């Protein structure tokens, strides 16, 4: 066994208490809530990691993979869901352990404090309170969720009252915010801009001190904001005001162009390549070969931009026989590929060179480009599970 995600350790127990859960029944609605819990833990761990490593802009390899909790068991009685965290074997350091454990500890202490009407721990940020809005939405007044840390056995009860206490005062708050996207609108007089992000449009203002070059770059944005039309991706960060989980205003304080830090081609060259591919006629592949639509091409480039921001190397890009687009690259003895199919669904694979090991999967067409990029970043790790032949 080489370096890799090798075993999964029991991390947290979530016990759903209430009549609905008798006999170990678990309504599907709670799966989304566990997902929201996982996302919140990830964001808390991420913030903690970046705060502890101010010299780093990005998370280390494997961080996402080892924070993707899995349901390992649903026990009878009231439904008890055991969530386990993939960890790494002795061949690689577990970059996540401390930060993720600490994140769960802070969350459980915050929940416990809210339930006892005590002050929340100072390490529990305001934005995280607002995120609690997504957890426990389906709980009835007579139901609750009992969270237990597997390691410390610390328990915290989460119910509607706790949720209200956590979210209540966090109705409106200010927090750091950043977005990756292309500029589709710009008004120098109003100091305003609009960005087409992978999750949809984001509008904001920018501080007047913004560098002249960057203002020029923003102003060069073409209508519609499509990458296919030559718009470049930017990472725009600043401060946003939120009402509950929705952003009300956004003030950009820094803007930087996104490009690949590794690999041989730039994002602009990838765009040119994709534009060439979209010009292929039907029959381009030995008399077969479907053309690639501009919708698929734009979705592909949106995912590519997100992956560039996440520090992934530039890929080689190819059309597929069925009208899809495919990205391939290799590194550290692993071949990676992901393919955006004509349906908008995504197939991915990582294969270990010199062995028959591979991991594959697919992502549905209903996912946003941002979600596809996040999932690819999480799953194409170059790490190997023991169970992979």
């Amino acid at each position, binding site marked *: 066994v080489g370096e890799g995600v090798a075993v999964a350790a029991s991390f947290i127990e979530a016990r759903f208490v209430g009549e609905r859960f008798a006999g170990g029944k678990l309504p599907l609605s709670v799966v989304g809530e566990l997902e929201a819990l996982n996302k919140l833990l990830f964001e808390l761990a991420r913030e903690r990691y970046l705060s502890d490593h101010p010299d780093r802009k990005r998370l280390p390899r494997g961080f996402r993979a080892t924070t993707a909790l899995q349901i390992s068991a649903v026990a009878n009685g009231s439904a008890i869901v055991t969530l386990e965290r993939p960890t790494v074997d002795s061949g690689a350091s577990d970059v996540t352990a401390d930060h993720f454990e600490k994140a769960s500890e802070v969350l459980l202490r915050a929940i416990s404090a809210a339930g006892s009407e005590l002050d929340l721990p100072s390490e529990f940020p305001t934005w995280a309170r607002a995120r609690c809005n997504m957890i426990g939405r389906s709980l009835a007044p007579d139901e609750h969720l009992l969270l237990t840390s597997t390691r410390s056995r610390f328990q915290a009860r989460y119910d509607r009252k706790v949720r209200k206490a956590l979210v209540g005062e966090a109705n409106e708050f200010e927090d750091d915010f950043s977005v990756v996207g292309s500029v589709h609108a710009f008004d120098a007089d109003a100091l305003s801009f609009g960005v087409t992000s992978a999750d949809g449009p984001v509008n904001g203002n920018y501080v007047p001190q913004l560098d002249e070059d960057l203002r020029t770059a923003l102003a060069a944005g073409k209508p519609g904001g499509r990458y296919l039309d030559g718009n470049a991706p930017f990472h725009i960060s600043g401060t946003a005001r939120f009402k509950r989980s929705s952003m009300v205003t956004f003030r950009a304080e820094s803007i930087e162009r996104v490009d690949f830090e590794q690999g041989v081609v730039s994002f602009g060259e990838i765009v040119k390549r994709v534009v060439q591919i979209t010009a292929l006629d039907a029959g381009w592949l030995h*008399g077969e070969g479907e053309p690639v639509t501009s919708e698929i091409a734009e979705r592909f480039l949106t995912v590519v931009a997100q992956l560039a921001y996440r520090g992934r190397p530039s890929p080689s890009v190819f059309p597929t026989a069925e009208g899809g687009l495919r990205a*391939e690259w290799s590194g550290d003895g692993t*071949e990676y590929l992901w393919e955006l199919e004509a349906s908008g669904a995504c197939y991915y694979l990582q294969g270990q060179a010199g062995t028959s090991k*591979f991991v594959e999967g697919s992502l549905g067409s209903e996912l946003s480009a941002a979600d596809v990029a996040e999932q690819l970043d999480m799953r194409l790790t170059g790490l190997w599970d023991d169970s992979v032949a």
Partner: protein
Amino acid sequence: VSHSDPLTNGDEELFRQLVPTWRHEDKITSQLFLPTRKDEGLLSIDRGSKVGPKQAFDDHTALGLQSAGVFAVTVDEVANQAGLTAHDDPLPEKPHHGFIAMDELPTRGAREKKAQLLRDFAVQRGARYEPPSALRPN
């Protein structure tokens, strides 16, 4: 699906035509050795014992089809490295036609992995024929 007896001459080369857009910079996609959905798991090849690489190229382009070059794997690589079989399958318009059988592989991932392996052998060998005028589109 039953196929004819597998080819046994380990040194025989099996040719694939590279469509120009399947080369980006210096990288060739593993799709070069991946059957399309329409192929139903059987990857068409031209048999090197029946046709040379240049003739295979000329025959292909004479049909108005594009090729940026001819790449090859051997029967030995197919059988002993990739664990697959190659078969004779002459067609009226293409008597040197054959195929590499991937129809028994259980998953798409298994086919993709074999395609990567065969692509690596072919790229390592280098193009068996490239037209002098071949442009390398980016």
